[in-house]
């Protein structure tokens, strides 16, 4: 078995046991990354950083001063500012941007001993569900429909991360989730991904999309790997006013798939017309697996969830329209100067050239919903609905400990299949968005494959700060679901 086929836990334990060195791990992954250009997952490769961390890990092993992620190289979504390493957020606008600072989350991982394999491709400014909005070309999923060579999307926006983990060119990767950007790609590529409670991970140094929703999280092959990474990523950060000043639990040590005494809520409103039968069938199967683990299923109601998607597509673009105003060509990034033109000509030319269509679409939607005369009808109303959605969850968690839904209403689709229809694309996040609006921890774990042999995910939502229950339920599903065979290398 190649080292790249191992999970983070296996690599960690094998490295500690002396089965192999950190250098061997880094070298194998660096080579695998180099051999996977066809996937377009990595925008920047940093083999030297992976080796540097590996050397430190090997030394630490000698001196018995190992850190939690010593010896583990990881992929970094391009939304995280990495000091001296190109950070483009998948955009032409930041095509030349070398941050003089390191994001808190990536710094936390570094401090925990992890190395960095490179920067992972993504939808531009994390806006997209298929990785087709990236300025550097789409990421290709290692998955293919049975009997077809058509390129499949890994989902988005953390598509590079999903593709890399599923293709074993990173044992784990960081993702960010604003409205499903960790969970949907995890589901599309047969891996795990968790978005923790809003405020668990510092947003400092993560290029902002929608501040009240953005949250970092890990993407990895197993629930245990997610727990390991999440522990290293989280923690209070005084540089982020919305960071939560709470202890980081030992999630890995707390893992248990025994769900006796737990109740799993099944929201009746999530039976949406038009959802494929195989999705609903998997959902039913998921309930049975959790019951088998000792949990008691209860029907719950989340009546305002049906408004979650439109609410999200008001709030997220509104915040984005303001967050992205700083990309004006004045201080860094792209600058397009019009001969003989003034400041506003520079703004127009720079932003017309630097942003892609989807980003422009969302800036326009956001500008519209915040403008005089429309603010109350859209933005204020959306904030009120958001409060009601949160209240729904609060009530639901009086009756249950976790909620189970499908992660996405379909399996991965082919590249180009939905790119002309933004609404169809947005609908992909219908199950993911309510937990984002409520700031709750939520995870996607693989549940099986569909008729085409493409993976499907199950979605677990937990109460505020209760990542442990989400991880434990995820583990229970992981133990019972048919094991996913990741695609063999064709790239």
């Amino acid at each position, binding site marked *: 078995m190649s080292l790249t086929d191992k999970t983070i836990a296996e690599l960690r334990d094998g490295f500690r046991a002396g089965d192999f060195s950190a250098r061997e791990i880094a070298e194998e992954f660096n080579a695998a990354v180099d051999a996977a250009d066809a996937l377009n997952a990595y925008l920047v490769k940093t083999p030297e950083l992976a080796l540097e961390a590996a050397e430190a890990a090997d030394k630490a092993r000698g001196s018995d001063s190992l850190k939690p992620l010593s010896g583990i190289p990881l992929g970094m979504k391009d939304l995280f500012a990495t000091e001296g390493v190109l950070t483009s957020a998948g955009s032409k606008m930041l095509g030349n941007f070398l941050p003089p600072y390191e994001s808190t989350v990536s710094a936390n991982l570094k401090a925990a001993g992890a190395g960095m394999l490179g920067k992972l491709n993504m939808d531009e400014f994390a806006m997209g569900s298929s990785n087709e909005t990236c300025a550097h070309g789409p990421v290709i999923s290692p998955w293919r429909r049975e009997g077809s060579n058509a390129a499949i999307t890994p989902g988005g926006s953390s598509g590079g991360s999903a593709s890399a983990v599923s293709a074993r060119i990173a044992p784990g990767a960081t993702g960010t989730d604003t409205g499903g950007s960790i969970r949907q790609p995890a589901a599309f590529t047969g891996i795990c991904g968790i978005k923790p409670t809003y405020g668990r991970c510092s*947003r400092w140094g993560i290029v902002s999309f929608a501040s009240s929703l953005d949250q970092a999280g890990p993407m990895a092959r197993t629930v245990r790997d997610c727990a390991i990474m999440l522990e290293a990523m989280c923690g209070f950060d005084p540089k982020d006013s*919305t960071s939560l000043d709470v202890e980081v639990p030992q999630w890995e040590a707390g893992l248990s798939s025994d769900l006796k005494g737990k109740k799993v809520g099944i929201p009746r409103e999530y039976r949406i017309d038009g959802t494929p039968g195989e999705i609903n069938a998997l959902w039913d199967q998921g309930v049975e697996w959790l019951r088998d683990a000792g949990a008691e299923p209860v029907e719950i109601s989340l009546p305002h969830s049906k408004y979650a998607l439109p609410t999200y597509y008001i709030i997220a673009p509104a915040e984005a329209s*303001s967050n992205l105003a700083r990309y*004006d060509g004045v*201080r860094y990034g792209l600058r397009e100067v019009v001969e003989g033109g003034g400041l506003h000509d520079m703004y127009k030319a720079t932003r017309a050239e630097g942003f892609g269509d989807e980003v422009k679409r969302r800036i326009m939607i956001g500008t519209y919903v915040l403008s005089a005369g429309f603010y109350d009808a859209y933005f204020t109303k959306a904030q009120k609905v958001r409060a009601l959605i949160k209240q729904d969850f609060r009530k639901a968690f009086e009756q249950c400990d976790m909620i189970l839904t499908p992660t996405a209403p379909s399996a991965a689709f082919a590249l180009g299949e939905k790119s002309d229809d933004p609404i169809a694309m947005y609908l992909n996040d219908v199950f993911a968005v309510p937990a984002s609006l409520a700031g709750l921890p939520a995870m996607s774990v693989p549940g099986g494959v569909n008729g085409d042999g493409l993976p499907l995910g199950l979605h677990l939502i937990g109460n505020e700060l209760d990542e442990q229950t989400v991880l434990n339920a995820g583990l229970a599903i992981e133990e019972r679901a048919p094991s996913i065979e990741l695609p063999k290398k064709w790239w």
Partner: protein
Amino acid sequence: MSDYVIKGQTGDWEVVIGLEIHAQVTSNAKLFSGAATAFGAEPNTQVSLVDAAMPGMLPVPNRECIRQAVRTGMAIDAQINRFSRFDRKNYFYADLPQGYQISQLYHPIVGEGEITVLVDEKDENSAKTIGVERIHLEQDAGKLMHDQHPTMSYVDLNRCGVALMEIVSKPDMRSPAEAGAYIRKLRSILRYVGSCDGNMEEGSMRADVNVSVRRPGEEFGTRTETKNVNSVRFVQQVIEYEAKRQVAAIEAGEEVVQETRLFNPDKGVTKPLRSKEDAHDYRYFPDPDLLPVELEDEFLAECRASLPELPDAKRKRYEDLGISVYNAAVLTAEVENARWFDRLLDAGADAVAASNWANSVLPGLLNAKEVAFDDPRNTPEVSAEILAMVDKGEISKGQAKEVFEYYLDSGDSPAKIVEDKGLKQTSDTGAIEAKVDEVLAANADKVQQYKDGKQALFGFFVGQTMKAMQGKANPQVVNQILRAKLDE
């Protein structure tokens, strides 16, 4: 009631004024970043990653700025809002790196308060109370420099993100004099509280001047807002100019346009900055990077406890000590002077004599020697020592001036100066009486004339006695003895 009226062709008009004062908060760091705030630093040397709006940078509120705004609110008896929030005001400009200014539109930190001003410092009856609508915190912008390059403008972000308090008055002022008194009083309060240095030349205080006109007693007219006026005199010029311009426009059958204007100090006129058609839509919304500000009892208690005695209370205390309304107003206007004067009182000086000395005598003495009031030599203790000698009759008021001048030149103590220069006047009645007797004996003819009714000769005898005493006699004692001898 103000008697300031604009005489139009169709009758009298009243001017209605509201002021928005932007006061830079005294603090070592900016409102949402750790960068320093020193004035006059090299361009772009006081800029953090947050101020430059680098990708992924986040604002963190500076507790000290919030504290200063709360203390300012308490100083004008305003409602302190335990819950406030920051909003984004969105617009594009090269001096605004984020593409939005963080401000407080919907939930300001301070609500309604009031400031009482004396429109005429000499007249207690000229007091007028002017309402304050709100105080909110916001970020300052950077500065563009257009003269550094032939085709481009340069940006200096040093000021970008510095905390400002926007203090919004109600439309309660009716004359340039009232507006001037309001700004001066507000500046005085801010400096007492220590929340703003009030330095208008350096831009620490700037005013947006809202002016409209109406027939007395009628509804408010349409107002104009003249931005960024940076002296009391200019504010008053803006009011006078705008009031006349608006009256002329209305009387010519035109309408006053609600617009933003700029003042040209060289020409003394205001000009439209932009018209309503291309007015900004600022798309205010709550800043999602920041949590609401919730103030706790302990914090509020500390803010209140840290407030010094404020101008009005101090003025009242001085007046209660017998100091005149005018002197009390002048002494309390500037916090440094008031603190100096308090030390003079603490050193035991008589309040009324000290107030006359500090207001009428000392400034002239300092001016003549070109010594600043805050010169380290000008200690209240020295003045107290001199005033004590006057009080005890050891030197005259005239000699007091002399002693102070010698003191400034030599640095010697007043006691030593009096000793060395032989200035000490005598109250020794025996010695004085002897000289008086000599003077009266030598001028028997004049004594007779005095007794015959030529009272004016009294001064002559005083002068002769003082001369005989080489100027060192206590004039009061001389007077007493002379009166006794001449009127017996």
